[in-house]
């Protein structure tokens, strides 16, 4: 197949979820609620997260055997997109990605124990990043060694989203010279040295995890033979959902900017009538439109091996700069108000900075694409 052409499709379930998530997220995550949760230590509303679990959204891409709906990540895309659109907070993305890692590399016992819990609304998190700040998930410094107390861990994980509420954390370590994934239960998580990080996107809750002195039982290791595939899949799943969240954010950002451009008057005219403002707004809108096409194509092809990888990396490489541009111009076009904390434009720009740097930025994905398609 030519590198020029992707394929796009939309399942009935995707369309239905798009509609219900659109309404749900709008109702549950007004901009006032977003602002209130920024100042809240927990950072999200547990009742809303519980409702999402009741709606079955945490089990969308989990097989029925583990009490999920047995669909694919493609069906999670519209939910995350609509969360992004409303800047909705909470451990939905972290829990979904952790579940995918367990599903991909977990032992049968781990899957049977953990997945139904996550589907039911127990928050979980992924701990992959380390202080070296390399996105390559196989570049791991944290160690796991067999010792007196079982598997003894050491090293530091950073930028672990939602580690404050997670009851399960999937962390990458090196075990017997190979990349491994280890499942930390609530007890192990409590034993970690945790520090809440100050991050650019204030709707997020992110933590540093010190693993020194923490040990887990041997059966906390995921199936080592499946770990390389799981790490790759996690990166792609995170990129797909992160792109969906950015597309949603882009639509929200453009809608709010357009409303301001219509409402705000200078020199006796709405400022949106000036082409110096309207043309870049069109550019921003079209950037997001293209990103959205990429994201739904990536969702559609996600399970198709190399084609899926190409589609996902393209989506992430396009969505990041597209949201960054939309939000950057949103700040500028709000004038003096845009420079204030009160103006919502900053929320989108900070969101863009956060998402762009999860699971690889645009340049990282373009470099991967260069080897894949050139």
């Amino acid at each position, binding site marked *: 197949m*030519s590198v020029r052409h992707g394929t796009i*499709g939309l399942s009935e379930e995707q369309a239905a979820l798009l509609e219900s998530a659109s309404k749900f997220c709008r109702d549950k995550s007004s901009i006032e609620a977003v602002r209130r949760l920024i100042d809240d230590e927990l950072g999200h509303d547990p009742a809303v997260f519980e409702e999402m679990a009741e709606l079955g959204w945490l089990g969308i891409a989990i097989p029925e055997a583990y009490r999920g709906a047995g669909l694919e990540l493609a069906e999670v895309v519209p939910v995350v997109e609509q969360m992004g659109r409303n800047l909705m907070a909470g451990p939905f993305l972290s829990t979904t990605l952790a579940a995918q890692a367990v599903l991909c590399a977990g032992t049968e016992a781990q899957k049977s124990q953990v997945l139904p819990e996550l589907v039911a609304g127990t928050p979980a998190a992924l701990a992959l990043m380390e202080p070296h700040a390399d996105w390559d998930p196989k570049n791991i410094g944290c160690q796991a060694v067999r010792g007196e107390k079982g598997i003894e861990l050491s090293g530091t994980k950073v930028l672990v989203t939602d580690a404050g509420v997670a009851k399960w954390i999937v962390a990458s370590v090196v075990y017997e010279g190979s990349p491994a994934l280890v499942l930390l239960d609530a007890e192990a998580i409590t034993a970690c040295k945790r520090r809440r990080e100050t991050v650019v996107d204030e709707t997020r809750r992110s933590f540093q995890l010190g693993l020194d002195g923490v040990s887990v039982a041997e059966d906390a290791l995921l199936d080592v033979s499946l770990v390389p595939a799981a790490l790759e899949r996690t990166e792609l799943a995170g990129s797909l959902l992160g792109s969906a969240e950015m597309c949603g954010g882009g639509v929200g950002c453009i809608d709010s900017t357009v409303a301001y451009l219509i409402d705000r008057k200078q020199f006796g005219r709405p400022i949106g009538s000036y082409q110096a403002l309207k043309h870049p707004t069109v550019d921003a809108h079209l950037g997001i439109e293209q990103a959205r096409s990429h994201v739904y194509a990536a969702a559609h092809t996600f399970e198709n091996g190399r084609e899926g990888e190409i589609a996902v990396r393209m989506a992430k490489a396009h969505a990041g700069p597209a949201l960054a541009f939309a939000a950057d111009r949103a700040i500028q076009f709000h004038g003096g108000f845009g420079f204030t904390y009160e103006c919502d434009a900053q929320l989108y720009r900070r969101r863009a900075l956060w998402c762009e740097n999860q699971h690889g930025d645009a340049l990282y994905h373009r470099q991967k694409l260069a080897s894949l398609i*050139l």
Partner: protein
Amino acid sequence: MSSPSKRERDEYRAEASAWFEENVPAQPDFMLPLTFMEVGTDDQFHFLCDWQNRVYEAGYLGAAWPKEYGGGGLDQAFQDIATEQMRRHGSPIMLNTIGLSWAGPLILDMGTHEQRERYIKGILSAEDIWCQGFSEPDHGSDLGNAQTRAVRDGDEWVINGTKIWTTHGNYAKYMILLARSIPDTPNKYAGLSFFLSPMRVPGIEAIPIRKLTGEYGFTETFFTDARIPGDSLIGEEGQGWAVAMRTLEYERSARGGQAGGLSIKVPDAEEVVDLARRARRSGRPAIEDPVVRDKLVELLIEDRGLGLCGARQRLAPLNQERPFSLGLSSKLMQTEFIRRLNEFAISMQGARAAYYVGDPDAIDDGTSQRSYLNAFSATIGGGTSQIQANIVAEHVLGLPKS
């Protein structure tokens, strides 16, 4: 009509592929135009008329147009396959694009039965070449202000005024003409009428204009008491603006129903990648340069994204909030992309980027250079990119008029 099965499409594709393989003419000893807008010599004109006619006779043009007017009566999917095969087999462009892609669909859409019978077959067979009289020397982007006059005189209309950028003005038999038949209306749009005008009548003179590439292809067209038949109107008198807007939807591909066929040959993104393997910068293949690689990937992402936007238009739930967004923006996005793609193709060529068409050392005979300069015809013609941006801003985003 149910959409054709994969087997039907595959069979049709195989037939079309075999036909074009066999029939695409060899390169003549003169340069062929890259697009329908650069037909400047009689040799080019006759060669391309003949080729379009053969493609039509073989059934690969207007395949989805109604049978009763000369089309093939097939599903649109078949024409799309045929058009793709033209591209794959290096077919020269279809000369009569203004007839095939905008006048023809307009006549099928808004014309009378008699008008369809009179014009459609000639459009497909290239017997009747069409041109478009919209822009005027003083009214380009402000099309609604067109001042060419049409005055009713007995059984005829008398036309006076000047049109410009008339592609095929010196070859066309007919023109889709926007003219003012009611002067001094309070609303400038209300005075306009739309005509299917013959070109070969006394009082019409088309003077070729030379383009930035050095080629010809369009004219400035002068009307001096030119008399055209009274039944030349399409739509009612005074409704010319609505007909013109519909025409522009066809021209900008915001509305389907075109006869199909290749109308431009521009290097696509994959050909630019191929060029990057052949072109050399700083003593090595351009494709080994990490900056070039990054830029190529960026362009391939955008190229695919544009195709996906076209495909996404058919998925209604993904277009609910701003349903006209993708349709109204496709011309803007596509034409600007092609311009930048060609500009980048030149930039990879190192010092040889300085050559132009005709020099024996020019890469691919200067195609990138010529394509880049020609790309402005699409970013300007049919409404400039800046006008397109206004349209998207106002009709998609709901921003106030400028």
